[in-house]
């Protein structure tokens, strides 16, 4: 069964450093997402991406964040200068849209720890 994959599973970085989180969505899906979940809190929408551009973004997704789909398979989230409060699980997700359920398929997540 197709699945969303994410790398790395855990990333530790120093405050102020840049990090790139990587995702490979399901190949025939059209919408791609990044979500954040701070420990013990809710899943928060960051950004959606469709047709090679940002479709929607939240207030969290400020100038420190960027997304890219550099080739036909990878989807990346870059945080330019990490802050302590960026420590969270980051989930990538994708949906087909062409189906009837708009079911989001989530990856296993990347745990980002900013020291």
């Amino acid at each position, binding site marked *: 069964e197709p699945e*969303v994959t994410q790398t790395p599973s855990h990333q530790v970085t120093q405050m102020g450093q840049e990090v790139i989180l990587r995702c490979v969505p399901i190949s025939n899906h059209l*919408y791609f*997402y990044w*979500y954040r979940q701070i420990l013990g*809190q*809710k*899943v*928060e*929408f960051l950004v*959606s991406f*469709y047709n090679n551009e940002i*479709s*929607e973004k939240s207030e969290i997704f400020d100038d420190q964040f960027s997304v890219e789909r550099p080739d036909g398979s990878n989807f990346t989230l870059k945080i330019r200068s990490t802050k302590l409060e960026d420590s969270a*699980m980051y*989930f990538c*997700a994708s*949906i087909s*849209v062409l189906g009837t*359920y*708009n*079911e*989001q*398929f*989530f*990856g*296993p*997540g990347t*745990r980002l720890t900013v020291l």
Partner: protein
Amino acid sequence: SQKIEQNSEALNIQEGKTATLTCNYTNYSPAYLQWYRQDPGRGPVFLLLIRENEKEKRKERLKVTFDTTLKQSLFHITAPQPADSATYLCALEGTSGTYKYIFGTGTRLKVLA
């Protein structure tokens, strides 16, 4: 502003007794609502979607209802087992047609053997 509320307190229920979880929303008129399961340290997994013109949707031991007048969805697990212990999330499309999804805080369900 738009708001989704789920009972943030954990729900402990005896194995075999039906579990009912609630999702309330305000300032939305969603075309559909989704329910997901999340295990600790894992990504959410889609369970069910119910549309505004559907009162009820079932999948195996799961049942979801959707009351657009009350702005509420109920999620039922019939004969829950310890393996059903997880956090259950409801999600709505923030603005119709945007595919931007907003999640509730989730309700942690613990099924006691």
